[in-house]
């Protein structure tokens, strides 16, 4: 942390404008989506909307294909998050404290699924399923998602574990607690919020993933795949607009919660 006493020069006006412009660039398109969900126009993307209405929300809520896509996506995301939570925590425990041969290779391996383009991960899984004669199913999607969700949990957990003072663990052991008691009473409370944050982000990542999914889903329709079909061949634009708003709302909650958890948790670990 930099000291607050360092006399900062004031930001120049052009820097402020550039920053504001960048933030607007990032957020105006999202705001536009919300506006369009209330547009009464259903044949084109005309701007500005001729008039505003809330009727499309009821239409979208009554659509079974939307609901079954949501249900599939939620189930996939829950399973992937669960698997990622276990694997990511184990990996963080191993890599945060120990030094051993191949450590860097393992951390690279964990990052690889998101560092390589999604197309590569997707087609690699597709060719492996093909080679092993595994038919597409719910689990073929989950395996793909869990693989790239691990790194999110791992990153959060390892950052917190590194901040955790070793003297806390020594104190716990000196006071007679065994390794499991120390884990349960000392490490877990410190790690908990980082894991929750990691899990929320993993959930958001899986809930939204489309590139790998197109290779591993076969005929199944997750919510992003539903959305992609609408993007390529729009069928009922107003319904798509409403679903888009619904997705924004649903992903903002875990993201903000995860941010809040990491901030609060880091402050605790530091004091």
């Amino acid at each position, binding site marked *: 942390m*930099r*000291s*607050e006493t360092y006399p900062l020069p004031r*930001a120049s006006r052009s*820097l402020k404008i*550039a*920053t504001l412009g*960048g*933030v607007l*660039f*990032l*957020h105006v*398109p*999202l705001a*536009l989506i919300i506006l369009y969900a209330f547009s009464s126009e259903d044949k*084109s*993307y005309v*701007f*500005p909307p001729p008039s505003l209405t809330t009727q499309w929300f009821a239409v979208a809520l009554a659509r079974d294909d939307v609901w079954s896509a949501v249900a599939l996506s939620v189930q996939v995301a829950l399973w992937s998050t669960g*698997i990622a939570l*276990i*694997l990511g925590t*184990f*990996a963080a*425990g*191993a890599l945060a404290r*120990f030094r051993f041969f191949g450590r860097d290779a393992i951390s690279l*391996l964990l990052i690889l*699924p998101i*560092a*390589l*383009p*999604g*197309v*590569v991960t997707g*087609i690699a899984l597709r*060719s*492996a399923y093909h*080679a092993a004669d595994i038919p597409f199913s719910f689990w073929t999607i989950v395996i793909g998602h869990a*693989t790239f969700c*691990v790194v999110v949990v791992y990153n959060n957990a390892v950052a917190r574990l590194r901040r955790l003072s070793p003297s806390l663990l020594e104190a716990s052991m000196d006071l007679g607690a*065994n*390794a*499991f*008691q120390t884990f349960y009473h000392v490490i877990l409370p410190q790690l908990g919020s980082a894991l929750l944050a990691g899990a929320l*982000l993993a959930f*958001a990542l899986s809930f*939204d993933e*489309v*590139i790998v999914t*197109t290779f591993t889903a076969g005929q199944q329709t997750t919510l992003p795949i539903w*959305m992609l079909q609408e*993007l390529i061949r729009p069928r009922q634009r107003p319904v*798509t607009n409403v679903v*888009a708003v619904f997705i*924004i709302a649903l992903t*903002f909650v875990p*993201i*903000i919660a995860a*941010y809040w958890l990491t901030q609060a948790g880091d402050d605790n670990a530091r004091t």
Partner: protein
Amino acid sequence: MQLGHRSAASFGDRLSAVLFQRQSMLLLILLIPPLLWFGVIYLGSLFSLLAQSFFRLDDFSGTIVYEVGLQNFVALFEPANLDVIRRSVTMATMVTLTSVVIGFPIAYFMARYARGSTKAILYVAVMLPLWSSYLVRLYAWKLLLAKEGAIAWLVTQCHLEWLLESILSTPVIGGNSLSFSSLGTFMVFVYMWLPFVILPIQASIERIPASVLEASADLGAPPRRTFWTVILPLAMPGVAAGSIFSFSLTLGDYIIPQVVGNSTLYIGQVVYRQQGLAGNLPFAAAFSIAPILIIAIYLWLAKKRGAFDAL
């Protein structure tokens, strides 16, 4: 250790003592589950991809012939395929440069000037788009770029139709409308990956010690000089780290050019179409090796600039 005295020690205590004395065992227990998953499923898949790329598709029966050969890699060097690769790399480079130019001021402001709630708000403002739905954000641009959409409306309001017309009639970047042009594809790419570029740059500027900046000022450098000779070089690892994301993500994406753009192909689309419609998994596999190699070269260059210390 006087474990003998504690004959009543619970199983947990004993196991704990064993693990404490043999840390390597604890390490092994922790490592096995993630290693099994990544070793078998992920590396296994990558190897099967590699193996697949040496086979070939029988043109008549449409089935895969399991004979090892290099024909897929030879086909990569056909002019049409080289064109796709060149176009993808050019696009990735342009997107990366533009993202850095747009992203740097934001990162710089966040790291050096923003304090307290302004800083928190800016951080969330950059992080939200990074994590929020890729498809929804892409959809937003379909709305923005549409012929009857918001950008066209704004252009009409400002009486700049002539400008838009002349941009759209420019050969390589133009097209029927913004949402069917390479320029449109480019804008969406920049929008999509901008947060990924901002955050590493911000982190690297934040890490510059205040004392270094004070020293520069004490030695008589005006702020402008400090920026160009001290801050910018020290921020380069962050720039390199951020550029890895925008470069790699652009190179592998096949959905953005499919939804917004003209009919020119990029690497990701060729891979997707070959495995899907054409059913030519071996050629798709070989083609997907191309971005891996390009990114490996890029990573190697970025590593030399210290990008990995900034992640």
